């Protein structure tokens, strides 16, 4: 094996460790922010990304005006952080490229781990598929049905799972596993 993290020099192991711990820190805060602004349940995610109830499927042929009474307390928004199409475009533009870079970095770590070819392919696929699922779920929730919020939840957890798998295996193989002496 040309590239084996378990046999790498200590500075390489240390930099990989720092990378993974930095990702873990960022993901931890990412999870905290999701809890603050979207939530982890399908209802909260759908409320964040689905189109508002007052939107019409198609623009009317002539402008329509509807007026209804409301109370002062109703000015307080029910959804803490609704994401409309324009904001979702911005979020996708900002996040997807960086998720790709993160997946690529983690894939480089995977390449240095001792695992079967199939396991490596599966892990790398998971790393790249997870953000795709995450954002696909957001877009489908907005334009097809609120039920696709599940896809976003699955994608988010898959990202976390990918990081945990790679970090756990890397730390184990680099620092904890004892090398067998070769006679």
């Amino acid at each position, binding site marked *: 094996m040309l590239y084996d993290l378990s046999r790498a020099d200590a*500075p*390489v192991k240390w*930099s*990989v460790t*720092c*990378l993974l711990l*930095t*990702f873990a*820190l*960022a*993901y931890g*805060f*990412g999870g905290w*922010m999701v809890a*603050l*602004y979207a939530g982890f349940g399908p209802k909260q995610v759908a409320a964040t990304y689905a*189109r*508002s109830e*007052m*939107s*019409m499927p198609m*623009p*009317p*042929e*002539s*402008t*329509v*005006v*509807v*007026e*209804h*009474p*409301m*109370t*002062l*307390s*109703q*000015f*307080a*928004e029910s959804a803490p*952080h609704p994401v*409309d*199409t*324009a*904001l979702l475009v*911005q*979020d996708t533009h*900002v*996040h997807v490229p*960086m998720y790709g*870079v*993160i997946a690529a*970095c983690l894939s480089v770590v995977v390449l240095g781990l001792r695992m079967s070819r199939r396991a490596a392919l599966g892990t790398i696929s998971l790393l790249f598929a997870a953000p795709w699922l995450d954002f696909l779920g957001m877009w489908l929730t907005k334009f097809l049905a609120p039920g696709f919020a599940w896809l976003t939840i699955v994608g988010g957890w898959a990202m976390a799972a990918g990081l945990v798998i790679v970090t756990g295996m890397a730390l184990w193989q680099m620092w904890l596993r004892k090398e067998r002496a070769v006679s």
Partner: protein
Amino acid sequence: MTTMFRAAAVAAAAVLLHITPTVVLVERPDAVAQLLPGADRYFAREVHLADADAHKLHEAVDWSPTDGVLTFYSGRRGNALIGVLEFVRVDTPHGPVEVTVAFDTRGAIRGVIVTKATVETKPWVLEALRAGLVGHYRGLTVADIPAASTALRGSVGELPLYMAQQVDKGVARALAAYGTFYK
């Protein structure tokens, strides 16, 4: 390789933390109470724009409201109109800013409150507000072009000035929407 890993880690953390969660500067009910003082009844008027009207608005102020719906909120005391207000969102590369613009019964701007910013833009918005940004909008009518940011030039930094320009944009949108679609 060490440098590459560290650079990737820093970039990843920066972008993950670059997500710009909304910060409420003034709760909407509080803004309504300040901008429509004395009102005891409130009404929401939703204007679902036809394509032609949406295009007209877009041409005028380079803006399309969320889901093609403009919402005007009026406040009344008994049957007497106190005023009308709009919540206008301006998307910036640093996240959205929400500007609340209230009109008096003559159709002039009674007051402007920046109700939302982001973690990143909040200090810049606050600096612009401390420099007296919103006072410059009072009394403007649909015939005016808001340019309060020019009055701040030289007294605030570049980024607060940039945010002031975004608030100008929000007020311009509110004026255009009110002048064209609030009858």
